[in-house]
């Protein structure tokens, strides 16, 4: 009886083709990707047929969580050093905190390192009284705090003339833009500089209060963030 002969075949597979494919895919993802913004809450924006893109610079985003908490995200200009992210945020923080201190003289001063920390943060939104504490926290604690106790106080004040904290921030943004970059200021007033992002299931009252605050600060022109819906009919 002859032994069953097992044919020895090479187990090495040529990976060159595979490598080609993966490199192609990688290139595709690298070119098309826009990184997910780190946000304290994920919201699904309502669908609409409008296809105007969200500006990726010189933009103020108001994020409204399903619980009605409000966060802000400031983006400066990408190209110029005139109003970079860091500079924009620092100036807004200084201006807003100064205004807050006028009515709360006992509030602690901002330190340089706190201001610097703030300039690196994308989405923020804590009550002013917690702001210095929040900026001193570790990164993970900060995210936790944003989720649990965050949200800029937004209730319309009954007392005439007194700004609530959200209005203080809006006013600070307006002031900074007006003083530092008039072109950006007209951009903001013209409606391309500020947007509301809210979940599609949210009751309108959550968005309404944000709009009311904006109206009070004379920002009447804004955009709503939507996700693209394809209409059957075409253009």
């Amino acid at each position: 009886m002859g032994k069953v002969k097992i044919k020895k075949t090479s187990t090495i597979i040529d990976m060159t083709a595979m490598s080609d494919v993966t490199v192609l895919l990688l290139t595709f993802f690298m070119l098309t990707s826009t990184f997910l913004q780190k946000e304290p809450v994920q919201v699904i924006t309502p669908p609409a047929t409008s296809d105007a893109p969200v500006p990726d610079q010189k933009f103020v985003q108001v994020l409204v969580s399903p619980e009605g908490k409000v966060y802000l995200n400031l983006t400066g200009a990408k190209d110029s050093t005139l109003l970079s992210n860091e500079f924009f945020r620092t100036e807004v923080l200084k201006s807003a905190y100064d205004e807050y201190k006028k009515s709360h003289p006992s509030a602690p001063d901002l330190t340089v390192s706190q201001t610097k920390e703030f300039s690196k943060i994308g989405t923020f939104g804590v009550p002013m009284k917690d702001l210095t504490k929040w900026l001193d926290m570790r990164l993970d604690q900060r995210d936790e705090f944003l989720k649990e106790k965050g949200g800029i106080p937004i209730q319309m004040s009954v007392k005439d003339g007194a700004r609530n904290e959200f209005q203080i921030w809006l006013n600070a943004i307006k002031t900074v833009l007006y003083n530092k970059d008039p072109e950006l200021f007209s951009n903001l007033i013209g409606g391309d500089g500020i947007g509301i992002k809210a979940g599609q299931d949210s009751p309108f009252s959550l968005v309404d209060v944000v709009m009311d605050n904006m109206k009070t600060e004379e920002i009447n022109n804004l955009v709503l963030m939507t996700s693209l819906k394809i209409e059957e009919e075409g253009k």
Partner: protein
Amino acid sequence: MAKKDKSRQKKFDTRIDFTPMVDMNMLLITFFMLCTTMLKSQTLNLILPTNKNEDKEQDIKIQQSNAISFILDGTVDKNGKAINSKIYYYAGDGTEEGAALTEINFGNGKDAVRGMLQDRNKALLKEVNELKEKWKKGEIADSTFNKKVKEAQKKQSEDLTAKRPIVMIKPTANACYADVVRLLDEMQINYVTSFMLQPLNKQDSTLYEQKLGHALGAK
């Protein structure tokens, strides 16, 4: 020199094992896939009416025959989500005899929001459609199309006798945000030139109570 070297050259196997390269690429791809958002957000433009009192008095008197008001309503469930969305509308300013809310929904039918708006905006839509035909045939460019539409809209809004819808969108506190956006979107789709987002006034509340049998916000 070069020739000498060549003659002495040994033959090496030029094959390189690509497996680690593939491994690394796969990892990178996974990373990019998880970190990216393919869905880019879009935006919808909106102009809010001012809430300064002195300006309110200068409110433009609109032609009542063209006015149409949408009231968006719903309920909020225990998770804080807006559900049961309902849309009502009435024509005119709601003060005349027999004014009442009619329920309406989104959709493509004749008696849905779009059909109704199209019916009321016939004149302009006819113009737009003609332009659209031209655009489809490639006779006019994208930018010209947009410019011409804007011109037509401007002309229409300046013509005080034109029959056109002037839409008031009045969401209650419980209305679903997505519906508000959808209605605003319908304005763009149907080339409605004049629309505004407003709170409900006294007249709206009265009509609402008549229709639903309970006051606004009460359940």
